[in-house]
């Protein structure tokens, strides 16, 4: 072989070793004692809150964001970054708890834990039966956002989406879970059903509804109703509140049959070395002023009961932001982690979209 080529290869290998040699520290070591690595959804915490925390406690926060629970799970499991705390959705928390990825939170050291209403600890029990691992952060529902100039009588049931009255004027969520969940509730099933026949019936109903659907959208669903391009859309409560800001003629309803209640909660990972700092951070999030700051940044439904009293009257009376207990009575938390059912749902969804 050419001598020069050999030299080139050897020097390349040497450079590699050199880079390896001068690396600071191996990745397996968790972050420094006064640093917490926090994993959260994008735009899901007021940046001021993080600064406040560091100023008050001296603990630095390394903040990382993700878009979907699945993405979080994959990044967390890959182990490239050692996360201390993470905030994700109900069913993903269930999966993490089942896999032993979270450690118990010592709530007895919390000063502000009681700011979180009892109702939300009840919701949490769907995936964290003893309220040992997770701290509720934000929550919401799925319902119908409709234009009151186009839909004359108040909506009370999922039926308006399926009876053909508003054919061509309906926007559905472009997500397998959301589409199936609301239809399952409409048919009177549990939204966590694993019964094949029930799922098949749900699919048939969705297929029958398909010609009436103007579009299956995610983020744009709200905008279409705001702009007056559709009479109604299936949206999340947080989106509905923002839609109301742009167009006064919109109403949001959680149908009487019930719907999905989702909950995003915090957990401490099993790798977290500095549990005390992690607990401090979670407790800090429950504090009245911090919860208010985050609420005013995100405008999702908050489980922190001190927030409502700090707002002006108009917001306090907003039914979208502060629904009555009665409205969420028939709602369920999604805890479906059964892989077989998930595959079935995904296959049916693909079939539905292809049809």
């Amino acid at each position: 072989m050419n001598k020069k080529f050999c030299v080139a290869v050897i020097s390349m290998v040497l450079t590699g070793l050199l880079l390896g040699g001068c690396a600071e520290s191996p990745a397996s070591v968790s972050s420094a004692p006064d640093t917490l690595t926090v994993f959260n959804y994008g735009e899901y915490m007021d940046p001021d809150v993080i600064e406040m925390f560091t100023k008050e406690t001296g603990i630095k926060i390394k903040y990382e964001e993700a878009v979907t629970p699945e993405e979080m799970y994959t990044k967390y499991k890959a182990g490239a970054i050692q996360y201390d705390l993470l905030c994700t959705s109900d069913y993903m928390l269930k999966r993490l708890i089942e896999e032993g990825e979270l450690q118990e939170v010592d709530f007895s050291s919390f000063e502000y834990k009681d700011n979180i209403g009892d109702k939300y600890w009840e919701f949490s029990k769907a995936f964290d039966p003893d309220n040992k691992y997770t701290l509720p952060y934000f929550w919401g529902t799925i319902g119908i956002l409709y234009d009151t100039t186009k839909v004359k009588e108040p909506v009370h049931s999922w039926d308006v989406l399926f009876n053909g009255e508003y054919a061509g004027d309906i926007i559905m969520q472009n997500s397998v879970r959301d589409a199936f969940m609301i239809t399952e509730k409409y048919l009177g099933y549990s939204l966590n059903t694993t019964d094949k026949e029930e799922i098949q019936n749900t699919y048939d109903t969705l297929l029958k509804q398909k010609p009436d659907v103007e579009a299956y959208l995610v983020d744009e669903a709200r905008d279409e109703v705001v702009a007056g391009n559709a009479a109604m859309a299936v949206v999340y409560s947080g989106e509905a509140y923002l839609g109301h800001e742009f167009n006064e003629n919109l109403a949001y309803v959680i149908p009487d049959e019930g719907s999905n209640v989702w909950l995003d909660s915090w957990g401490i990972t099993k790798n977290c070395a500095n549990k005390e700092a992690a607990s401090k951070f979670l407790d800090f999030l429950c504090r009245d002023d911090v919860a208010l700051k985050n609420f005013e940044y995100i405008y999702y439904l908050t489980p922190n009961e001190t927030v409502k009293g700090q707002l002006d009257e108009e917001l306090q009376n907003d039914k979208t932001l502060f629904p009555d207990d009665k409205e969420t009575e028939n709602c369920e938390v999604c805890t479906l982690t059964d892989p077989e059912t998930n595959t079935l749902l995904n296959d049916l969804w693909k079939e539905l979209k292809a049809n």
Partner: protein
Amino acid sequence: MVDKLTDFISRFYVAIIAVFLYAPIAVLIVLSFNKSRSRVVWEGFTLDWYISLIHNRQIQSALMTTLALAFLSAFISLIIGTAAALGISSMKRRSHRTMMVLTNIPMLNADIVTGIALMLWMIQFMPLGFNSVLLSHITFNIPYVILAVLPKVKMMNLSIYNAGRDLGAGPLRAFFMLILPQLKDGMLSGFFMAFTMSMDDFVITYFTKGAGVNTLSTMIYGEIRKGIKPEMYALSTIIFTVVFGVLLVANGNTIGTKERKRGYE
């Protein structure tokens, strides 16, 4: 008559292409001045998003990270790439070809494969952070520099260098005064190509970045769930305007020189 028609069709064709290219950017610019956060409601003209952009430390730090990454990675890969191009050009034919294949592969390889591979490699040696992203960007930038510099190396006139040495210049002095100037154009375009590649990159950055490090692209990605904020529209408008301005000035110069040349004729 037929001439007029073909003339019209060709003009129309160009116009349509221009519309498809620039209409989305026009929408973005218009939205950056919209008082409402919504994408579908126009509530009036405002400069608020530009003002809140100035006060938004997250966006600023992401912008600084992006620029620092682009500049540092382009500069370092310029040095390594130029050296590599000089080395490769003096190789024998077979090893020359082997090296070219080796440097071309990373360019053609799917970003996601490069990204995951780099991540797996990096976590063996260092915690992911700014440094790991920088190393990754240098890695994928080097081939672009080599590609831009190599042709210039081949066109280079070595006799000038030899003459310089004969007249008593040391090897370093001869290199910097006689070789580098001949490679200048290639190096410049290699640098800019690397700079752009680094600024544009999302996939590789996403996989190799550590917690708390955000470039503009990864930051925008994080915002998707709750809707992109109009500050981003404002920032994109500024970036577009700057690039457009730079291009105008650059092209204005070349148009000027052409006209001057014509004047001499």
